[in-house]
């Protein structure tokens, strides 16, 4: 039945892409939502009636003598958790999109690719071997690229799509590398690799997997595509660049835990890079002017937390945060989308303001508030419980205290930028004219997500009885409600207070013009560094080889050879003069030459 979660959205997507425009808006959208809804139902069924054996083979996919790769699913608590999260959030976002994209003329392209994305993501979490995982891995990259570039008339969207695709391809190559090494050791199936991991070349495999995870999950230094990806429609940002695709890296690490355990020294590196990503992104988020880019950097920052958790070995906490983050970040994005929709596409927070007074936007406002508080980690919202678990795990397992301190500081920064965003958007004096009211479907999706954001933490991860942790069968992390509360309030309240004093008392008219802020807004200029270090040399090589060398090799050299042939033909032709005396002279000379040679041979 779990196969329905893959094939229904896949077939639906292909059908809508081919015939959606002719089918009409209503039918296409219902088909898209229906298939994803059915996928969610099949995920629920899989949860309640899981197969007895995790390895479920459908057919043989690749066959080369001894090496064979099956097309099959690996159904265990981890993949079921992922499947539920992915299909559930995807279904809500599909519903939201039905309202958000109501006036989009090219709805078939949008919903077709959105469905294809869901199919690829399901493939990714269900795969029972690394080759099939790669199929989903690249599939989500492709669908993501097509959706980022959905507004094809905008040059910036196309450039962002290209950038995302190229960086993701780089990540795919890392995964491919891991596949090569594993395949040469005998098998790429999870059954073999994860249950009896081989020590040999494990470091290469792990580095390959990490490159893949870092590219897909937008972690430093492969993160630069994520802020630009906000060029896509907002539901796409919510689904792909917040709730599902970008978390694939965390899923990969959690899935490959047995492999990672073989190279224990990588753990500290993963944790340190996770902290770097989290802190770097948080610092960028607090200088953004574009609401969606704040959320994008915030996503990167929260993913950094999940990687930190993986680095210290707390995979259960990472997956817990992945799930709650999917809820509250999707909620934040969808509310942001409703606001942007209402303001006719305005994304600059400094041009918003005063929206708290507008009754049309009461829903998005409360949604944003709930999501924002969850992001800041306030109890009893979902974000609090999962972040607490990660922080506790870091405190207990990390090699150095600096990691824990860094994580705390980043938590305070998080509270600060989310407070800043809320104040800039909703408070203040600004006036707005006619507002687009969010449609019922949009509000419905937001309310369900708000409910999940409010309740999921209590249900899934209450200290002492972590339901999700027990389900995933991970080692329990002994969190304590009292210290947890203290830590949470100790970081979140100061951050929010600071935001209140800086932005609510006297509202600034525009972003700070200090150089450091401008640099942070531009993502610490890492884009430029990448351009200079990688893209410029590649372009230069292209110019040099394709322009200069190829000109010589393709035109000048062959022409030279050809001309030499023609010229020598002409000059040799001159000897055929027709003068009998010349011929006789040549004959005589040749005869003399041959005779001399023969005589000399005889004497020697």
């Amino acid at each position, binding site marked *: 039945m779990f196969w329905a979660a893959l094939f229904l959205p896949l077939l639906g997507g292909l059908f809508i892409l081919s015939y959606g425009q002719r089918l009409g808006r209503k039918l296409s959208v219902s088909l898209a939502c229906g298939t994803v809804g059915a996928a969610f139902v099949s995920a629920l069924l899989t949860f309640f009636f899981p197969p007895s054996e995790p390895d479920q083979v459908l057919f043989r996919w690749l066959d*080369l003598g001894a090496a064979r790769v099956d097309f099959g699913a690996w159904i265990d608590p981890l993949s079921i958790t992922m499947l539920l999260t992915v299909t559930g959030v995807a279904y809500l976002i599909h519903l939201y999109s039905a309202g958000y994209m109501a006036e989009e003329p090219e709805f078939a392209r949008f919903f077709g690719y959105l469905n294809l994305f869901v199919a690829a993501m399901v493939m990714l979490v269900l795969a029972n071997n690394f080759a099939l995982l790669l199929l989903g891995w690249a599939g989500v990259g492709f669908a993501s690229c097509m959706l980022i570039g959905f507004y094809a008339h905008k040059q910036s969207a196309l450039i962002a799509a290209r950038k995302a695709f190229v960086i993701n391809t780089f990540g795919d190559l890392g995964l491919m590398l891991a596949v090569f090494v594993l395949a040469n050791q005998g098998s790429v199936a999870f059954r073999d690799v994860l249950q009896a991991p081989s020590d040999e070349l494990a470091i290469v495999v792990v580095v390959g997997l990490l490159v893949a995870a870092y590219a897909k999950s937008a972690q430093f230094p492969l993160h630069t595509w994520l802020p630009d990806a906000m060029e896509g429609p907002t539901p796409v940002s919510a689904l792909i660049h917040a709730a599902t695709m970008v978390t694939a890296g965390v899923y990969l690490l959690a899935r490959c835990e047995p492999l990672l355990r073989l190279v224990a020294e990588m753990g500290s590196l993963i944790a340190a890079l996770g902290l770097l990503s989290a802190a770097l992104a948080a610092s960028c988020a607090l200088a953004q002017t574009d609401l969606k880019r704040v959320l994008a950097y915030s996503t990167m920052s929260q993913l950094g937390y999940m990687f930190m958790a993986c680095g210290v070995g707390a995979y259960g906490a990472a997956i817990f945060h992945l799930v709650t983050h999917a809820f509250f970040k999707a909620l934040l994005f969808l509310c942001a989308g409703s606001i942007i929709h209402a303001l006719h596409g305005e994304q600059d927070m400094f041009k918003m303001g005063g929206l708290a007074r507008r009754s049309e936007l009461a829903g998005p406002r409360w949604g944003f508030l709930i999501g924002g508080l969850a992001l800041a980690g306030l109890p009893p919202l979902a974000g609090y419980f999962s972040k607490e678990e990660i922080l506790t795990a870091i405190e207990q397992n990390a090699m150095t205290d600096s990691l824990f301190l860094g994580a705390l500081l980043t938590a305070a920064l998080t509270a600060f930028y989310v407070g800043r965003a809320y104040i800039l958007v909703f408070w203040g004096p600004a006036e707005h004219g006619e507002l687009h009211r969010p449609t019922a479907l949009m509000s419905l999706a937001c309310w369900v997500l708000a409910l999940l954001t409010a309740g999921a933490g209590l249900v899934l991860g209450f200290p002492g009885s972590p339901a999700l942790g027990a389900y995933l069968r991970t080692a329990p992390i002994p969190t304590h409600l009292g210290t947890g509360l203290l830590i949470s309030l100790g970081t979140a309240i100061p951050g929010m207070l600071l935001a209140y004093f800086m932005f609510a008392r006297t509202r600034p008219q525009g972003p700070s013009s200090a150089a450091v802020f401008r640099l942070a807004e531009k993502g610490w200029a890492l884009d430029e560094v990448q351009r200079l270090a990688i893209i410029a040399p*590649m372009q230069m090589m292209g110019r040099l080889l394709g322009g200069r060398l190829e000109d010589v090799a393709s035109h000048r050299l062959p022409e030279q050879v050809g001309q030499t042939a023609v010229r020598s033909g002409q000059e040799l032709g001159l000897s055929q003069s027709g003068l009998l005396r010349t011929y006789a002279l040549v004959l005589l000379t040749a005869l003399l030459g041959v005779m001399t040679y023969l005589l000399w041979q005889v004497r020697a």
Partner: protein
Amino acid sequence: MSDWPVLSLMVWAPLLGAILILASPASWVKGIQRLGVLFASLPLLLALPMYASFWQAPATGYRWVEDVLWFAPLSIHYKLGVDGLSMPMLLLSGIVCCTAAFISLQIDFRRREYFALTLTAMTGVLGVFATTDLFFMILFYELASIPMFFLVGIWGSDKSGDGKPIHRRQAAMKLLVYLQLGGGLVLIGILGLYFLSSQFSPNQAFSFDLEVLRQIPLPVEAQKILFLIFFIGFGIEAGLVPFHTWLPEGHSSAPTALSMLLAGVLLKMGGYGIVRLGFDLCPEAVAEWMPFFAAIAVVNVLYGGLCALRQTDIKVMIAYSSVSHMGMVFLGLAAMTGESRSALFGLTGAVFQMFSHGIITALLFALAGTVYHITHSRNLRQWGGLAARMPFLATLFAVGAMGSLGLPGMTGFAAELMVFLGSWPARPGLTALAICGLVITTTYLIRSLGYGFFGPLNPRLVGVRDALWWERLPFLLLALTTLAFGFYPVLLTAVTSPTLQELVNRV
């Protein structure tokens, strides 16, 4: 159907069509076009059941063998036969011939001569894969390459715009010279094989027959020289750097259908020949030369990719991408030096890559040609935003580009995965370099997609149309093939693996 001379029928059907077309009056346009498409589709119709029979019972050895003594004094046989290596190539040729004929309906002058020449060339390419007699292999090769000269020279187009202008007459000449250079080297090699083998055969008999020749043990030194000759000769046909320069010029001038045949099938003759003559007949020379050619293969991958990066002419870009992709074929072949497991991976990957590249490049050239036919421009920068007016062609171009850059689930991925799997254990460094080539491939393909089909619509192109329904058939056939074989690669590997396994065991 087993008693019928199916292979002869398949190979000669296009030529028969050519004769019928030449016999019909030039003004009978509809009839000529229908005859052309019909006779060019026959090989595919015959190849499908043959492929199915291989799929049901894969095994080594030739099937549907026809053997007629053609010229006794030189012991030349007219001998045809198909095995697990040539079957995918014949299917590929069948598909490309059929779709190329469909695309040829766009030709609007001197149709009679055009179809006659194209069909003749098709007989040539099919014959090369179907014959097991080396004399006929050369004969068919010439039959394929000579008409191409006229096709480029008469129905080709000149390239102006930025970069060096290319004139079709010159391009045709260059194409012919390079193809003949390659063919000439191969001929020298075959003659050497012919004379040498008689010295070492038990009864001193001369033979051009592949099955006879592979039984005769040649001295290692002779094998080394012959292998080098074959590799370079066929390498020229397959776009081996630095002998690749006929590709971009030839393609940019060639009419669409010819580009499809050139890139889709003719390039594959090179790779096929290397396996058939180089590996199979000179097995002991493989370990000597392949390490060297592995390095050239990676140069092919990177050099072709970097050159493609800066092209604005879409056809030139696809031509350079062919150079890059054929590098993958060479790299896969180079895995033959490794242990038998990775050798099988590499060899299967190379054959798969030939098939995949043939289908995908034919698709891309067909699309480029059709858009050119509609917009009268091949310059990517002058296209812009075509997706808004040509959603069908844009989607298909995206499919082709994704297949070409090796998106998992498409043939390109399966092929490249196997090539890298094969070459990784023996040459991790070179393989890693080639993997980097994939990033370059991604960059130029996505770039072409972005410039050509998305972005703001060029105001000059507001009135253009999408493909008509009958124009869509060849694109759909090619795209479905790449999706089917990519999603279920066993379709190909099951057919090839017994034959390739036997070959690996020989080397």
